[in-house]
């Protein structure tokens, strides 16, 4: 179980542009951090950096698990539950096939039906993904996030394309995950629906 995540003096860089400089923060188990900032402020890049997909321009991100510290990017990635900007669905796969593939890829198996019920897609289980609406695609991505059973959730615009019920579902899942001792960092323009800390990214430098 991850106790906390600390970012120290991070610089987020895209090419030669510095999006964020000298950013430090800590998220403890059971906490949710919401990242806010104008479009292009570097929210997605920061999430990709934390996930280990994007190298840090400077500084470090460390996960603390018991006495061990995990700061190597690819090792860190193995703790990450990722809900990206894209839904990562194949048009010709059915909803249940898509979820089953990712469960197996993440070494988990078995409870796909229950997960689909949890996100309200039970009736669409045998439907090819090409017939899903944007909101339904998002719900399937949420089911996949749950299936990964990773402690650190990195969510990029988790409320995008969802209806009111869907947004409430996301807030409930985040609260549930935090309740079980998980960590959540979400880039969003909306409230996560629970008392969480907010980190605001300015256009070039950090403003807390």
């Amino acid at each position, binding site marked *: 179980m991850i106790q906390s995540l600390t970012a120290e003096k991070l610089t987020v860089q895209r090419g030669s542009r510095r999006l964020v400089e000298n950013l430090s923060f800590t998220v403890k188990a059971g906490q949710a951090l919401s990242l806010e900032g104008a479009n292009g402020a570097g929210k997605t890049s920061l999430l990709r950096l934390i996930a280990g997909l994007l190298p840090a321009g400077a500084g470090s991100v460390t996960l603390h698990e018991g006495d061990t510290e995990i700061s190597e990017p690819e090792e860190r990635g193995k703790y990450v539950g990722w809900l990206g900007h894209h839904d990562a669905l*194949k048009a010709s796969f059915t909803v249940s096939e898509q979820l089953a593939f990712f469960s197996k890829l993440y*070494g988990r198996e078995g409870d796909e039906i229950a997960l689909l019920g949890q996100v309200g897609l039970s009736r669409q289980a045998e439907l090819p993904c090409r017939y899903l609406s944007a909101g339904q695609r998002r719900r399937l991505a949420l089911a996949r996030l749950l299936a990964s059973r990773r402690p650190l959730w990195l969510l990029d615009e988790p409320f995008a394309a969802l209806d009111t019920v869907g947004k409430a579902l996301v807030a409930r899942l985040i609260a549930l995950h935090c309740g079980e001792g998980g960590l959540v960092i979400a880039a969003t323009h909306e409230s996560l629906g629970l008392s969480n800390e907010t980190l605001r990214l300015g256009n070039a430098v950090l403003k807390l």
Partner: protein
Amino acid sequence: MTPFLALLTRDLRLSVREGGGAVLALGFFALVATLVPLGVGPDLNLLAKMGGGILWVGAALAALLSLDRLFQADYEDGSLDLIALSPLSLEGAAFAKIAAHWLSTGLPLTLLSPILSVFFGLSGSAVIALTMSLAIGTPAVSAVGAIGASLTLSLRRGGLILPLIVLPLLVPAVMFGAGMVLEAQTGLTNGAVGFLAAFSLAASLLSPFVAAQGVRLNLAG
């Protein structure tokens, strides 16, 4: 099921359902093998001499057709991020994708080649040599192709650049592959099979590491 097998079977299924895999490559291969004899004319001696080389080039080009989407499709829809974060290393993922590509193109091309070699009037022993050489050599086409695919995955028209990167690297495969057919036809030992097997083995074992590095670079870009 292990993550490796999960990715392998998923890629196989995709190649069957979303097309661009076996059927397209087989169709292209069959058309090349039909058009060349029509263009060259009914000189069986000449056709038999050219057959091994033409069929090898045709098979290599056919296998390249679907290679540009090997990583690109997953990159564009975000699946590649999730694969990179999965318990499977990127090297393992690249190997699974290469294996799936070979099973869906290289293997069917190999199995089709004896039928197409009829157009070139190849002798029985030459047909066996051709089929053997494709069975040994096509894994190298998928493996070396994966390197090109990993480098061009973020390019919109990557499919056009890919052959320029990959084809020069496939010179040994085409040369020794056609060499095996020549050996069967002339009876002169040239040792092509050893070189082809060595090239194919080295390419299959090393290219997942290179391809994984290419994917890393592109994900970080």
